[in-house]
């Protein structure tokens, strides 16, 4: 019995090791290939260079336009997605009649399951003409990508926020109501602040989803490797930079694309660290 227990313990340990090993391998691959390229190009020229011209002689590998592209598109997605997602979560958690709840839940789950290429089609066929007709430009733009990503991060934000709100003890809610507060005041001033760290977790996951999204963005954002000039102009993001050129890139160009991946990876790392700081800060307050 004792031996069996020990054996099982190691089986579980090995299983747990798989994900750690995967992360380590990805790190090693990215950094081993990307960092030397950065060194060759020059870290500042790479990160702050405003021009990406891999076929020029000599080639220019500046990814600042793509960094800004990713930041703008992600920020725009959050501006649209977080309020809508959060209000949906509040509705589902506190206001929604049971009948509508099942329907909403299904819709949100379905939204999460749609492949991103299908989102991309939706973007090209519906959103691009919509943006073109409503705001002008040719419709392939930062704004279009923001709207599309805003929709794509909804399920993440809704699901995580909803469980965070549901997890808040009803004692808080009742305590607020017992003071004569309205339902809205109780929810927005007491319940939501109590669910803050869970909601932030949802937002961070949403950021991760938005910044990492490739296919759908590729289809609506234009992919011009240039400094963003306005939200109705096209731009290129870190992810689309990689996928658009990886097929034919060789040598330093290829390594520069992997280095782009390193930057993306570091972004996600920073987001995670910020998140855990906020979360711990919330606990110790």
């Amino acid at each position: 019995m004792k031996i069996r227990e020990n054996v099982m313990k190691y089986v579980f340990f090995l299983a747990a090791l798989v994900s750690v090993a995967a992360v380590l391998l990805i790190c090693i691959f990215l950094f081993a290939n990307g960092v030397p390229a950065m060194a060759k190009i020059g870290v500042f020229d790479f990160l702050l260079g405003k021009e990406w011209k891999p076929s020029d002689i000599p080639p220019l590998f500046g990814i600042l336009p793509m960094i800004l592209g990713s930041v703008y598109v992600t920020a725009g997605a959050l501006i649209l997605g977080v309020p809508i997602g959060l209000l949906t979560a509040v509705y589902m958690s506190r206001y929604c009649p049971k009948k509508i709840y099942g329907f909403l839940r299904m819709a949100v789950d379905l939204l999460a399951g749609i492949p991103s290429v299908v989102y991309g089609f939706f973007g090209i066929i519906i959103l691009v003409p919509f943006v073109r007709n409503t705001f002008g430009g040719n419709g392939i733009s930062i704004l279009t990508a923001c709207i599309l990503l805003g929709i794509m991060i909804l399920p993440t934000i809704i699901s995580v926020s909803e469980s965070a709100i549901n997890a808040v003890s009803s004692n808080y809610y009742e305590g607020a109501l017992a003071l004569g507060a309205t339902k809205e005041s109780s929810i927005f001033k007491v319940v939501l602040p109590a669910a803050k760290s869970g909601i932030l977790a949802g937002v961070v996951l949403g950021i991760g989803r938005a910044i990492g999204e490739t296919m759908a963005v590729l289809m609506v954002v234009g992919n011009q490797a240039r400094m963003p000039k306005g939200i109705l102009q096209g731009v290129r993001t870190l992810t689309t930079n990689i996928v658009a050129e990886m097929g034919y890139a060789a040598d330093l160009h290829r390594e520069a694309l992997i280095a782009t991946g390193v930057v993306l990876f570091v972004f996600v790392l920073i987001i995670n660290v910020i998140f855990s700081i906020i979360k711990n800060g919330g606990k110790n307050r």
Partner: protein
Amino acid sequence: MNKIEVKNLDLYYGEVQALYGVNMQIEEKEITAFIGPSGCGKSTLLKTLNRMNDLVEGCRITGEVLLENTDIYKDMDVYQLRKRVGMVFQKPNPFPMSIYDNIAYGPRTHGVRSRVALDEVVEDSLKKAALWDEVKDRLKKSALGLSGGQQQRLCIARALAVQPEVILMDEPTSALDPISTAKIEDLALELKNAYTIVMVTHNMQQATRISDKTGFFLMGKVVEYGTTEQVFSMPREKETENYITGRFG
């Protein structure tokens, strides 16, 4: 003077009847205790007095509950009612925010914005709840760092901050140690000079120590209601006598 009057109150949770024909007059500036075994309806009646039962799906009542002769179910805004009839819960439930914000939440939600006025309410409420000296240097710290007894007094202070007339207490000491319990009891005795207090308690000694009137509940009915002295020393009903002498419950 009667502060609250309950007339022929029946209460149902869906198909299940939880209160039967309750009639009761609650005197102003006294402590009224509700006693009885679990599930007898004493908490249910308490929650009817500030309409917290509205939150329970399928809960409905017939009969009347009057606060100073106004029907709280028909002729009064529920937010106004809960402002006038505050509540302290069984488990201390300070909000996960600072001590100051906990107290200020009620006044803020009722429209007090001025910093000076809020400071005043916070200090005043904490003093009335005998907590000021313990927390005055840490008002900006989280209320969750307080001990259980302090948290419960904070909840009392929070209830006082909206200037209620009646305070309902639902077994306010059942989660507390004896010393904290004694402090809450002293506080209740102090508060009855200015407020009407209705308290549900499992602890019969507590009822005898601090209450003026006692109602004994059994199976959704008020079996006996009178001065605490009379109920405990010469109960009119056999069931009351059995309960207070510990023969059941």
